[in-house]
C-alpha cells in the first residue's frame, strides 16, 4: 500500500468511523439494561436515555415472581438446541447434494426448498398448527421444533449452497482416488471446510428459535410446562397499559443467554476458521 499523508488521514477517519459505528451497535445493549431498571414515567418522560436512578430492581423481582423463569429458560434452551441441531444436519446434507452431486432435478429441488424463505409465519400459522396436531406432536416440544426447523431450513440451505459452491472440485476427485466413499468424503473432508458457515448459522438459527414469539404463543401458550421465555412479556401487557420496565427486565433475562452463546461461539468462529484456512484450494 502506498502511504502518502492524504491516505493516512483518510485511513484514520475510516478507523474512527468503524469505532463510532461499533459504539452505536453496542448502545442498545446498554440502553436495554438501563431501561429494565426504570418506571414508565422515566422511560417516556423524565429520563429516556440516561442511566437509571434510583434502580428499580423490582422489575426483575416482578418478572421472576410472575412466571417460572428457570422452567421457561429450560424450554427455550431445549427447543433452540433441538432446532439448531436438526436444521444444521439436514441443511448440510441437502445443500451438499444440491450443490456438488450430479443429478437431474437438483436445481429445481434447491429452488423449491428456497420457497420457504418467503413465507410470513402469520400466513401459514393455522395450517402449520393443524399439521402439528395431526402428527400428534401437540403437548411436546417437537410441536415447536419441527415448525422452527421448517422456517429456518431454506435459509440455512442457501447459505451452505454458497459455501459448497466455492470449494474446488479437486477435493472429491482426490478423495475418490484415495478410495474414500461418498459419505466419508462428505463428513471428513467437505464438512470441516464449511465450519465457518456452520458456526454463523448455529448462532443465527439459535437466535431465531430463541426469540420466536408468535408460533410459540399459539402452540404452547396454554401449556405452562412448555412455555418459552419470549412468552414472559405477556405478563406485562395490560388491556391499555404496558409495564415497559418489567418488559425490559424480561427481555434482559431472555437476551443475556443469547449474548453469552454468541460470545462463546464467536471464539469458536476464530478457531473454526483456522481449520478452514489450513486446507489449501
Amino acid at each position, binding site marked *: 500500500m502506498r502511504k502518502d499523508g492524504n491516505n493516512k488521514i483518510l485511513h484514520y477517519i475510516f478507523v474512527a468511523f468503524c469505532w463510532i459505528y461499533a459504539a452505536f451497535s453496542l448502545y442498545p445493549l446498554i440502553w436495554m439494561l438501563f431501561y429494565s431498571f426504570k418506571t*414508565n*414515567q422515566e*422511560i*417516556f*418522560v*423524565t429520563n429516556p436515555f440516561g442511566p437509571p436512578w434510583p434502580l428499580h430492581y423490582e422489575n426483575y423481582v416482578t418478572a421472576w415472581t410472575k412466571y417460572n423463569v428457570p422452567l421457561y429458560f429450560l424450554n427455550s434452551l*431445549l*427447543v433452540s*438446541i*433441538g432446532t439448531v*441441531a*436438526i436444521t*444444521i*444436519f439436514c441443511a448440510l446434507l441437502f445443500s451438499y447434494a444440491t450443490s456438488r452431486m450430479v443429478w437431474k432435478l437438483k436445481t429445481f429441488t434447491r429452488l423449491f426448498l428456497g420457497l420457504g424463505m418467503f413465507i410470513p409465519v*402469520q400466513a401459514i*400459522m*393455522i395450517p402449520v*398448527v*393443524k399439521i402439528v*396436531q395431526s402428527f400428534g*406432536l*401437540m*403437548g*411436546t*416440544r*417437537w410441536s415447536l*421444533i419441527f415448525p422452527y426447523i421448517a422456517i429456518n431450513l431454506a435459509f440455512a440451505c442457501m447459505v451452505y449452497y454458497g459455501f459448497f459452491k466455492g470449494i474446488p472440485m479437486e477435493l472429491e476427485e482426490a478423495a475418490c482416488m484415495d478410495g474414500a466413499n461418498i459419505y466419508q468424503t462428505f*463428513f*471428513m473432508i467437505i*464438512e*470441516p471446510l464449511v465450519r465457518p458457515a456452520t458456526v454463523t448459522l448455529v448462532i443465527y438459527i439459535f437466535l431465531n428459535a430463541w426469540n420466536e414469539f*408468535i408460533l410459540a*404463543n*399459539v402452540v404452547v*401458550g*396454554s*401449556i*405452562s*410446562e*412448555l412455555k418459552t421465555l419470549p412468552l414472559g412479556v*405477556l*405478563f*406485562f*401487557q*395490560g*388491556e*391499555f*397499559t*404496558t*409495564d*415497559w420496565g418489567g418488559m425490559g427486565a424480561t427481555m434482559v433475562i431472555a437476551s443475556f443467554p443469547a449474548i453469552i452463546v454468541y460470545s462463546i461461539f464467536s471464539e469458536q468462529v476464530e478457531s473454526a476458521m483456522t481449520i478452514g484456512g489450513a486446507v489449501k484450494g
Partner: protein
Amino acid sequence: MKKKILSTLMCFSVVATTIMGCGANTNETTNGGSASSTDAGANTQSGSESADSGDKITLSIYTQYADDDTKVPYDYAVEQLKEAYPNVELNLIVQAQDDGQTLKTLAATGQLPDIYQASTDVINTFRESNQIMVLNDVAESTGFLDKLYDANKDLAYAEDGNIYAFPFSGQEYVLWYYNKALFEEYNLEVPTTYDELLNCVEVFTENGITPLALFGQEGWNTAAAYDVIATRYAEGGIKALDEGSASITDDGYVKAAEKMEELVAAGLFQEDATTTNYDQASEKFLSGEAAMFINGQWYIEDATKALGDDVDWMFYPAADAASYEAGKAVFSGGGSASGFAVNPDSENAALAAEVAEFITEKYCEAKVMYRHNPLVAIDTGKQPDSEYPAMMQKLSDTLPTITATTKFTWGLTNSTFNDAIQSESQGLVSGQFTAEEFIEDIADTME
C-alpha cells in the same frame, strides 16, 4: 479430524434423543390424564392436572392479567371461586394484545380454552362457526339476567338475540380530561367552544406544553377524538355510521372532519401523535407536560392517583354555546357486547358456563370494591372500600342526564367501517390527510 466429526455427530444425536425424551415425557403425562385426546390443547392441559388430584376439574381460561385493572379482579375471582367451587381449578392463559390473532388461531385449530374473554368481533366471528356457547339458559338459571342493570341489557345480547358472553363492563364513556393546575397557571378558562379551545392551544404551545396528548398509534383513540367532535354536529357519531343510519358525506360529519383538520393544523395534538403509544401519552399528561387527554372513564383511578385534585374532566367543546349545552347529554363511548364466553366443545361445558357467570359477577364486585368503578354490568350490592374519586362522583351525577352514547371502536359491528374509521381518523390526526380525503376514502370503502 476424525474424532472431531464423530464428536459433532454424537452431539447431534445426544441432543436429539434428549429432546425426544423430554418431549415423550410431557406427552405421557398430558395424555395419561385426559379422557379424550381429540381436543388437544385445552383438554390435555386440564387432563394433566386432574390426573393426580382426584376429582378436581381444571378449566382453562383465556383472559387479561397484567396491570391492576385486570389482575385485581382475576385474583379476587379465583379466591372466591375456591370457596364456591372447591373442586374447580383455573388454568390461566394470559391474553396477548394481538387483535385476537391468538384466540382466532386457537379456535381455528380446535384448541379453544374452556372459558375465554370475547370481544364483539370475536362473538360475531365465532357464532358463525358454532364455537361460542349460547348462554341464554345459564343466564336465566343463575340469576344473571336479574342482576343485570336495565341500561346494560343490550350488552348481553348479540345481534341475533342470543346471549353468547357474560359482560362485566357496563356503559363506558370517553372523557376529555384536563389538568386544572395548568389551566389555572396560564389563566385559562375550561374551553366550551372550539374558538376558546384554539385560544388554549395557542397559549399552551407558546409555553412548550402539549395541549392534548393523543395516543394515536392506537386507532381507537384517534377515532374517539373524531367522535367527540362528530357528536357535536351529528348526535349519532360513529355509531350511526356503523349501523348505516347515517352517511359520512352527511353535513355534520363533513363539518366535524373539517373542524378536526383545523384543530390539528393549530397544533391541538403533539406532532408525533400518530406514533405515540398509550403509556407515552399518559405519562405526558400525568407528569404535566400535556394539558389535556382523551381516554375512557376507567382512567379516573390512575389519573386521580397521580394528579390528585389537579385533574378533572370537561364536557366536550362545541361549535357555539348553544350546541355546547345541548351536547352535554351526548357522550362518546358506550357499552359493547363482550365478556366471558364458553367453548361449547369443552368437556365440561355446562360447568364452564356456570363458572364463567360466577367469575363475571366477581369481576364486577372487585371492580366496584377495589377499583372504584361503579360502571359495571350488574348490580353487585357491594360498596367501594373508600369513597369514589371526585371525577367519578361527577360522572355519576351526570349519568341521569345522558340521553345518547355512541360506541368505542371495539363495540362496532361493521368490521370494514371499524378498520376505515380507525386508520382514516389517524390520517386526520397526522395532519397529512385532508378532511376531503377522509370523507372520500371512507365513502369509497363503505360502498
